[in-house]
């Protein structure tokens, strides 16, 4: 046995990755409290995809579910990675922004409403280019407003991962939760390879990609708050915990000095091994930075 993680329990786990966006959102909300907002039967779909030969979807790949988590008001916004790679279009982006704004309004009125954003996305939907970019800017603003009143929790479970503009959303979140199968990064591996060549980054080298972008590495270097197994009860437990913790004293994205000094202290003239960064940037040192 090379790893004690593997056993009968692992085989019989309820995989969270196997769930689609709607099932994921439902799984996170307290049983019997969920209702979907602007669901597929409202038939609000992207007007831009059909004219480019792409079949649109009637929820535009974004599921908004209102309900309670651990007894507290919450909204879950889940991107469907199977539809256009979870990309952000005009409609899906507006759905997400509006949901965050409603949560902000409720929170301000005295009902703190946490937001859980399920990120399986490569970022902007290329077919909707500027509209996608604009909407991401809007929703980042909405996250900044809401996070003062209630926690914004980002979860990336896999297998798409979270890249591009939406990695900024994860960056602004109060808490980020990942599985070891998930990946988080600004530029996706394929993009880096395409722009800077295979010597810079070989996107087919899974070991390399996960060593840098994978959940384990992101957790070990203190860039996220929890690493969970691909197991629905474990994912649910982590989200409930962060909803309970409420707004953090200091958000990660406010710790500008800490992260600047980390990057500044790095000798970029040599190639670092991702494992070395784990000792250099421990999860612990990030917590200390919050003091």
């Amino acid at each position: 046995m090379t790893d004690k993680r593997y056993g009968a329990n692992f085989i019989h786990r309820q995989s969270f990755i196997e769930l689609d966006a709607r099932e994921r959102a439902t799984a996170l909300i307290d049983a019997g409290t969920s209702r979907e907002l602007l669901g597929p039967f409202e038939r609000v779909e992207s007007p831009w995809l059909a004219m480019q030969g792409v079949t649109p979807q009637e929820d535009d790949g974004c599921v908004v579910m209102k309900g309670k988590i651990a007894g507290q008001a919450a909204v879950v916004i889940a991107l469907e990675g199977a539809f256009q790679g979870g990309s952000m279009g005009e409609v899906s982006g507006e759905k997400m922004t509006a949901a965050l704004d409603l949560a902000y309004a409720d929170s301000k009125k005295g009902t703190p409403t946490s937001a859980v954003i399920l990120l399986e996305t490569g970022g902007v939907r290329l077919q909707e280019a500027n509209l996608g970019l604009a909407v991401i800017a809007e929703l980042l603003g909405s996250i900044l407003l809401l996070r003062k009143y209630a926690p914004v929790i980002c979860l990336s479970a896999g297998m798409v991962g979270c890249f591009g503009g939406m990695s900024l959303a994860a960056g602004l979140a109060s808490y980020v939760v990942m599985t070891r199968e998930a990946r988080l990064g600004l530029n996706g591996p394929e993009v880096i390879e395409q722009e800077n060549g295979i010597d810079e980054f070989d996107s087919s080298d899974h070991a390399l990609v996960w060593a840098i972008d994978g959940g384990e590495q992101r957790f070990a270097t203190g860039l996220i708050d929890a690493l969970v197994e691909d197991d629905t009860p474990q994912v649910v437990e982590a989200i409930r915990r962060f909803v309970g913790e409420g707004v953090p004293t200091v958000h990660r994205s406010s710790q500008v000095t800490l992260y600047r000094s980390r990057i500044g202290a790095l000798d970029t003239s040599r190639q670092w091994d991702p494992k070395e960064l784990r000792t250099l940037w421990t999860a612990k040192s990030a917590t200390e930075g919050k003091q």
Partner: protein
Amino acid sequence: MAQQMLGRVTRSWTTRRDEKRRRMQLVQPWMKGPVLPTARVIEALGTLIVSGDSIVLEGDNQKQADFLSRSLVKVDPGKLHDLHLIISSISRPEHLTLFELRIAKKIDFSYAGPQSLRVSQLLEDGKLEIGAIHTYVELYARLLVDLIPNVVLVCAEQADAEGNLYTGPNTEDTPVIVEAAAFHDAIVIVQVNQIVDKLPRVDIPASWVDVVVEADSPFAIEPLFTRDPRHIDELQILIAMMVIRGIYERHQVHSLNHGIGFDTAAIELLLPTFGESLGLRGKICEHWTLNPHPTMIPAIETGWVKSIHCFGSEVGMDKYVAARPDIFFLGRDGSLRSNRVLCQLAGQYAVDGFTGSTLQMDADANSSTVTTGRLAGFGGAPNMGHDPHGRRHSSHAWLDLITENKPIVRGRKLVVQTVETFQKGDVPAFVETLDAVQVGKHAGMPIAPVMIYGDDVSHVVTEEGIAYLYKAEGQEERRRALAAVAGVSPVGRKAVASETEALRKKGVVAYPEDIGVRRLDAKRSLLAARSMEDLVAWSGGLYNPPARFRSW
């Protein structure tokens, strides 16, 4: 007087032996026993091989004598040219560089998967002449008949100072290549990963080996038999459910071979769940001839599998295989001994059935994986996917396919083809004419390169249902049965509802509901493993997937 009439020739009977001795003497000064220093390899190849020779280069389905092939392209083409290359799998770019440099001229091969496009181009440019495209066993059989080599270049994991070889779990094709050479005065040159004092076991004895050279890096090997369960979709699961119920259960298929693909991976992963719920453990799928597919792990761990004989090994499976000696064929050292030729033979003569997927099928169930512009060859599928008429022993499944009531009848091997009615996009899998016909004409092949001939196919399974082709009476009914499961493809659109209804009543066609399979049950949750992580877990951590299959 009698002697005159018989025309007895006066000649030397030792030309091959003399020539081998001559060449070996030229390299003798560089060698220590059978061991050649790594740095001398290019010179030695240029000396031991002579223009016009027939050579075998070990390029198997999986392992590659890549140090020797990379060295051979560095030999001066002015000195060495016009070789006849015999290779089972054209896998590496340098295999074809030999033709661009004109070191080699003619090729006899089985499979050209990754290099198939370049083969077509070189053929068109007149730089490559094809003897024939074979199946694996045919090519190896011809090494003993009319393709007898002068020099063979093979690979092994380890050698000792005397030249005994340990091939490791991926024995694959090495024994037959060396056999054909060593006993007919050809020169046997072996690249090894390592020269050691004591071998774990001897796979090839030193007296069959002439030259051993330590390679600059371990031989290349590809994980060709690994399928990530994450990519198995619900159509494939539905097809797998139908195969289990409508074919394996119905005919009591005890021994079998599976091709490689997501359809068959789905079947393997449904045995411990769907198969178990039908109470089929111990009744079907006990004895296998196939590589250690990682997707077999759950079925092995749940007691479905009694034995597996392998063509080759699979990257990452060595530790797991070594820990299951009751199931696999292992050496005294504890590691797998595979053998492609013997496993192919077993897959032809000893199993009840073969199941494999295909990409294109015509109205007569002829199928092919040939795509326009590529000469991919055959590999081993046609050997598995046919009914060997030389079989004489019977089994329940073999007898169950008898349809005639005559004093003399023969049983039949099950040849099951799974195919989704449409490939990716809107390309129909069922077509009027196989692409292979055009490709064959274009490449000047004497006959169209058909992977599995329709008359060998006993069952076709699509997401629509099963066509029990062996039961069909006459060509017309056979075509109607196939059309009934061919969906809205050009072939399927010829189906007439009333005829299909009659065929279902007669049992020549079955839709899922006819065999107790509920379409809505075809969910990924039915797979015993849904990810590579699950397979690792089932193996108790013994399976170590190659990096490209890891997503953690």
